[in-house]
C-alpha cells in the first residue's frame, strides 16, 4: 500500500498560492522601481543603472523638472498639514466618543464611521460641489485639498485612538483621579503618555493616506501648482517620455517607508518596558486598518 500523505504536513499547495500571490503583488512595483534607475530612456525594459532620472539629468530628472518636484512638494505639504490637523481633531473626537453615553452618541459615532466606508469619488464630488458653490470663499486649491484629506483621515485616527483607549481601560483614569489628579491632569499625566503609540500610528496613517490620495486631490486641485505626485503619475503614466516618473514614484515610496521606519522607532522607544500588542502590528496601524477596514 502506498504511504499516505502526512496529515500533519505543511499545506504545500496553500504555501505555493501564497508566495505566488506575494510575488505577483510586489514584483511589478519592484520592476517599476528598477526602471527608475535606468540609464536609458525606456520605462519598459532595463537599461543599465544610473541616478539620471532622480537628479543627474539637467532637465528631465525629478530634481530639475519643475513639474515633477513641485508635485513632490505639494504632496508633502498636503500630508504635513493633514497630519497636523487630523491627528488632534481625531484624538479629541476619540476621547470624547469613548465617554459619551446616551443621547447623541449614536449619531456622533455614525458620523465618524461613515467616512470610512464612503467611496472617495462621493467624497470628492461632495467637496468639489461645496467649494465651488457655498464655500467659494475658500475655493479650490491647497486649502481645499488639505480639508479634503483631513476629512477622510480623521476617522482613521478615531479608530486607532479608540482602540488604544479600550486597551488602556478606564482603570488608569480612575486611579489617577482617585489619587487626586483633576481631569486635565488625568489627560496630561496619564492618558496622553499612554496614547503616544496611538498618536504616532495616527500621524503615520494620516501621512500615508494623504500621500496616497489621488481622487480628492484631483477634484480639489486648482491648477498646475496644486498637482500632487499621484496626480502627476495619473496624468503621465501612459505617455511618460522617460523613467523620471518612475523616479518620482520611487521617491514617494521611499518617503513613506522612511516615515514607517521612523514611527516604528518612536513606537519602540515610547513603549519601552510596557507589555502588550505586537509592536509592528500596532504601529503599522494594521489593527486599526483591519478594524476600520478603510480602503483609502
Amino acid at each position: 500500500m502506498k504511504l499516505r500523505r502526512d496529515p500533519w504536513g505543511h499545506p504545500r499547495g496553500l504555501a505555493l498560492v501564497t508566495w505566488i500571490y506575494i510575488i505577483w503583488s510586489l514584483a511589478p512595483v519592484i520592476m517599476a522601481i528598477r526602471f527608475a534607475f535606468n540609464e536609458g530612456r525606456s520605462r519598459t525594459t532595463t537599461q543599465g543603472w544610473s541616478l539620471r532620472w532622480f537628479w543627474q539629468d539637467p532637465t528631465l530628472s525629478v530634481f530639475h523638472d519643475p513639474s515633477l518636484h513641485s508635485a513632490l512638494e505639494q504632496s508633502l505639504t498636503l500630508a504635513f498639514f493633514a497630519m497636523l490637523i487630523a491627528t488632534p481633531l481625531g484624538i479629541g473626537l476619540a476621547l470624547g466618543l469613548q465617554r459619551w453615553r446616551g443621547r447623541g452618541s449614536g449619531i456622533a459615532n455614525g458620523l465618524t464611521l461613515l467616512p470610512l466606508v464612503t467611496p472617495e469619488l462621493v467624497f470628492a464630488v461632495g467637496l468639489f460641489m461645496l467649494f465651488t458653490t457655498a464655500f467659494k470663499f475658500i475655493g479650490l486649491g491647497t486649502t481645499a485639498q488639505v480639508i479634503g484629506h483631513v476629512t477622510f483621515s480623521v476617522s482613521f485616527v478615531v479608530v486607532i485612538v479608540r482602540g488604544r483607549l479600550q486597551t488602556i481601560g478606564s482603570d488608569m483614569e480612575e486611579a489617577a483621579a482617585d489619587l487626586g489628579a483633576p481631569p486635565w491632569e488625568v489627560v496630561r499625566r496619564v492618558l496622553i503618555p499612554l496614547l503616544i503609540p496611538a498618536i504616532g500610528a495616527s500621524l503615520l496613517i494620516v501621512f500615508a493616506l494623504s500621500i496616497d490620495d489621488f481622487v480628492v486631490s484631483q477634484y480639489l486641485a486648482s491648477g498646475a501648482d496644486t498637482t500632487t505626485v499621484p496626480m502627476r503619475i495619473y496624468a503621465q503614466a501612459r505617455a511618460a517620455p522617460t523613467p523620471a516618473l518612475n523616479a518620482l514614484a520611487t521617491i514617494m515610496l521611499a518617503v513613506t517607508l522612511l516615515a514607517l521606519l521612523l514611527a516604528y522607532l518612536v513606537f519602540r522607544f515610547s513603549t519601552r518596558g510596557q507589555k502588550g500588542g505586537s509592536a509592528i502590528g500596532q504601529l503599522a496601524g494594521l489593527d486599526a486598518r483591519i478594524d476600520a477596514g478603510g480602503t483609502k
Partner: protein
Amino acid sequence: MAPRWVWRLLSAPGLLFLAVFFLVAFYAVVAVGLGNVTTQFQPVPHWNPLDWNVGYLREALSNLAPGGQMWPVVVRTVLYIAVAMALTLLIGYPVAYYAARCAGRWSGLILALLVLPFWISYIMRLLAWTNLLASDGYASEALNALGVDRLFNTLGLMEGDDWLGGQPVTVIIALVYGYVPFFILPLYASLNRLDQRLIETSRDLGASAAETFRRVILPLSRPGIYAGMVLIALPMFGDYFTQDLMSGSPNTNMVGNIINGYVQGGPDKSLGAAMTMLLSAFLLIFMAFYLRSLRREQREAE
C-alpha cells in the same frame, strides 16, 4: 470623573469638521443635483428643499435605467465588479488562510509582505502595470509569447494583442490587483482569531479536513468574508482611475468614469451630481450592512 461636558467639548471640533465637510458637502451634491444651471452651464445649487428641481435626477435615472443611454455601462460595471470580487475571493481566501493559520515561523514575514501594498500608493501600483503591460513591456511580451493573448482572443475575452488597449480582462485583473490586499487583511484578522481548538474538536469528532473546513472554518470566517467583500465593493463602484490607466477606452467605461466625466469635464456637472446621489443611494445598502457589523464588533469589544 470629569463632567460630561468636558468630553463633548473635546469631540466638538472633530464633529463640527465632519458635519461641515462631510455632511454639508454631501448636501451640496444634493443641492446641485436638484438645482439648476446658469446660461453658461454653471451649476446653481438649490439649498432650500422647496426649490428642488428633479429634472437632472430624472434624467440621470432614465440614463442609468434599463434601456437608457448608460444602461450598458451599469451592466458592465456590475459585471466587472462581480467577476473581480469572485477572483478576489478565490485568490484572497487561500492566502489569508495560509498567512493566518499555517505560516508558522514565516507568519511575521508573510504578514509584513501582505501589508506592504498598503504603504505603496495605489496609483504607483497601477503605474507599475502600465510599464509591464505596454506593448514592449515584459509582462506583455511574456504573455504573448506564451500565447495567452491568442487564447483570450479565441475565448472572446480580448481583442488583438495590446493589453492596455481597451481590454476588459486587463481592467478586471487590475481591479483585483488593486483591491485584493484590502480584502485579505480583514479576512486574515478573522481567521487569525479563530480558535484552533474548534478545528481540533471537529477533527476529533470525526470530520475530515475538508469537512472541517466546510462545516467549521468557513461558517466562522463568513463575517470576515462579507466584511472584506463590502470593503472592496464600495471603492470599486467609485473607481474611475483603474479603468483610465489600464484601458482608457470608452468600451470599458464604468459608472465612476461617467460621473467623473460629467463632474470634472463638461457642462453637465448637475447631471454628475445627480448620478453621484444615485450611486450613493445604491451603495448605502452596502454601507449600512458594513457599519452594522462594525458596530456589533465594537460593542462586543467593549
